């Protein structure tokens, strides 16, 4: 049976940074990744990564505490403040580490790392490499993985954990090249599987970002924390929902309604305008659309024309390229039609500040995890920082954890876990064969936009939840086609669908229970934040009959919750 002292699930930024850190201490570290590391969704991040470097004149008064405060205020005070502080205090050293590994950041005239303004931040704090920061960071870490000679199981998809008595002993993975389910033993497992955007129809996320990213820990009894908090990015390209970076507005882009008006002045102060935090800007855009001030195709315009060709080519070349290729528009001459799109999950697999889960030997970092440092709304530019800072931390803690552990797989536990998955698949094969898993996936994604989108209310959410339960019932009748063993995307699609349905149900249940508005969770029937009753984290535990909710306190260090105004 395969065994590695530490197994990392996911080869994006969090997973690779965890692997590099773990390998400093532990020889036998391997990555299992659903896609080749260079295909990871981290590479689609565009605008930048936050750190209070004070490299540009307008940011000279910036410091680590101001970054922490902006993050906590942005979170609508749901973040654990020690986690936000740990994140922001490690910002500068993280940027320098990436730079020392060759990351090609854009430069200031003095030759330092360039920084641009981003939403919800008091200073230009977002370090960038044109508008391809995620891609260049991903290249940088993949290069280090090659240098450190860390083994990667490419395109293996993890379906389940092997665990016993609250201890994690490995994973069950599908190897598409052999077509087999493979048990893999480990003394510690780190999840860095990314986001779940594909649960929603209007997502900026890659096709591979499904509920399965959190499925295996969730099914194994690890709770999902604050999973009802889903970020809607203000600017995704009409139709395809490809991300249009916040950097567009950071560089001075305007949001314009069908009256030709820069409408953000009606929602935030004139000083902030388009650079409000994402939850507020998305709600403003959706309000304009809902009240009839959108364009005939249902969009709002992101206008870059006044920036001029030179600035667009220098700072936003990738955005121009995407617009030309995918919608036939050149933003130098035409405004870009956008709508808000489902972008990021603030919630995720519950971890403590060390990245450790409520299961010994299991860790999580990056978007799939919830430490929580982003609370109810993440600031743009903080997620790339999160992946690297907390990826490294989880890697370090896991390497300490395995130190005194006996090497070798717990074969009995893993064999049982394997049998469980095999019988699950056998059960599916016995389905009556009504329906199509992709139709259920697509229908679910519409239900989520309808019921659990930017504006939520009791009635629509209850309707949405009953629809989710209905789809779950329907999914039990399906029978996979299972054409052959190798590269059987049908079996992966089945697990994706299960992950989508179960995580969607957790989002729905958490959202219905939380009777307040906070950050990205905005209820038209409870419009204000309610700290007396709801300054607490939601914990959703998987059960066969639907998620069981519990709550845990929010860690406050020195920032007293206050009204959030921009």
């Amino acid at each position: 049976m395969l065994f590695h002292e530490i197994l990392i699930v996911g080869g994006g930024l969090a997973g690779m940074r965890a692997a590099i850190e773990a390998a400093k201490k532990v020889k036998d570290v391997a990555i299992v990744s659903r896609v080749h590391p260079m295909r990871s969704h981290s590479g689609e991040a565009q605008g930048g990564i936050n750190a209070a470097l004070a490299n540009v004149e307008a940011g000279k008064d910036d410091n680590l505490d101001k970054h922490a405060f902006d993050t906590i205020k942005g979170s609508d005070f749901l973040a654990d403040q020690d986690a936000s502080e740990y994140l922001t205090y490690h910002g500068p050293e993280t940027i320098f580490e990436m730079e020392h590994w060759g990351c090609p950041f854009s430069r200031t005239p003095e030759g330092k790392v360039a920084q641009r303004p981003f939403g919800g931040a008091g200073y230009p704090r977002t370090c960038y490499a044109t508008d391809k920061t995620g891609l260049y960071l991903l290249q940088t870490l993949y290069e280090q993985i090659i240098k450190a000679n860390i083994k990667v199981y490419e395109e293996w998809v993890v379906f389940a954990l092997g665990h016993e008595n609250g201890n994690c002993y490995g994973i069950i993975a599908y190897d598409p090249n052999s077509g087999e389910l493979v048990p893999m033993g480990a003394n510690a497992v780190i999840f860095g599987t990314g986001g779940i955007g594909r649960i929603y129809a209007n997502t900026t996320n890659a096709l591979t970002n499904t509920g399965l990213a959190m499925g295996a820990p969730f099914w194994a009894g690890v709770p999902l924390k604050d999973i009802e908090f889903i970020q809607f990015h203000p600017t995704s390209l009409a139709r395809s929902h490809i991300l249009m970076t916040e950097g567009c507005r950071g560089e001075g882009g305007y949001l314009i309604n069908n009256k030709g008006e820069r409408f953000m002045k009606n929602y935030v102060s004139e000083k902030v305008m388009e650079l409000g935090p994402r939850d507020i800007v998305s709600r403003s855009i959706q309000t304009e659309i809902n009240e009839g001030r959108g364009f005939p195709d249902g969009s709002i315009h992101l206008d870059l024309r006044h920036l001029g060709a030179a600035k667009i080519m220098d700072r936003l070349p990738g955005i121009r390229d995407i617009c030309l290729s995918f919608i036939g528009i050149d933003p130098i001459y035409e405004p870009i039609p956008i709508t808000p799109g489902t972008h990021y999950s603030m919630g995720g697999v519950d971890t403590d500040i060390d990245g450790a889960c409520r299961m010994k030997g299991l860790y999580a970092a990056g978007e799939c995890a919830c430490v929580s440092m982003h609370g109810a709304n993440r600031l743009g530019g903080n997620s790339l920082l999160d992946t690297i800072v907390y990826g490294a931390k989880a890697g370090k803690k896991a390497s300490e954890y395995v130190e005194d552990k006996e090497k070798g797989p717990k074969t009995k536990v893993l064999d049982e876990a394997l049998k469980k998955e095999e019988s699950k698949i056998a059960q599916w094969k016995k389905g009556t064969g009504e329906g199509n898993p992709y139709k259920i996936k697509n229908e679910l994604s519409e239900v989520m936009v309808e019921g659990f989108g930017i504006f939520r209310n009791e009635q629509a959410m209850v309707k949405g939840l009953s629809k989710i339960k209905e789809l779950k019932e329907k999914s039990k009748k399906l029978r996979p086609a299972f054409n052959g063993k190798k590269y059987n995307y049908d079996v992966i699609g089945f697990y994706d669908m299960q992950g989508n349905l179960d995580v969607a149900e957790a989002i729905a249940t958490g959202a219905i229970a939380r009777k307040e508005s906070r950050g990205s969770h905005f209820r038209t029937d409870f419009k204000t934040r309610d700290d007396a009753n709801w300054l607490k984290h939601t914990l959703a535990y998987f059960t066969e009959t639907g998620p069981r909710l519990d709550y845990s306190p929010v860690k406050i260090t020195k920032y007293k919750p206050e009204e959030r105004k921009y």
Partner: protein
Amino acid sequence: MVEFNIFRYDPDKGGEPYFQKYQFEPEKGMTILEGLTYINENLDPSVAYRASCREAVCGSCAMHINDMYRLACKTQISVMGSKITLRPLSHLPILKDLVVDLNPFFGHFKVIKPYFIPKEQPPQKEYIQSIAQRKKIDAWLDCILCGACYGSCPVAGKDENYLGPHALLKALRFVDDSRDGGAKERIAVVARDNGIFRCHTVFNCQKVCPKDLDPSGAIARLKMKTVFRKF
């Protein structure tokens, strides 16, 4: 109506590869990748292909589409016409249908030491690099390792040891970086028989690159650097 004519090969079943036809009504603005998704979800879940970002950044979906290697996600059905033929990348072993084994491709990539080799001890903060120095590497950075150049390269087809346009371009990305100190060792690697001098300057790589990069130009620049080093 559009007709997709897809290369099929199933190692489980053995036998010869063949082409299978699928017809459907495309939506306005539909890409080749969305067409494949449509086929997968509605007509035949057994067609194997790679896809992830659907926005030309992850490099998963490079394949031969009608006359050229392209990214399926970046190619509009309407531009390709009503008959569309899809084949896997050339010069690499076929695993199933449109999925090829990329191990040889990444194997070559790893040979050129594709990681930063510091020139000096890193400073306390960042290395200082001028805007002009940073600009010098700009043209070599955006490679997404999709393999379109490799599939289109006749030399890669003849010589499996040839490092390939992707690996050579990556070598220049570091050679031209003012902060990197590994130029000498990298040039020693790319100047071997299976490196830059194997390139026949056919320009296919430059023609097909979905990120509009110029591996031919990069190889020419490496040749120049190598020759000048000899004197």
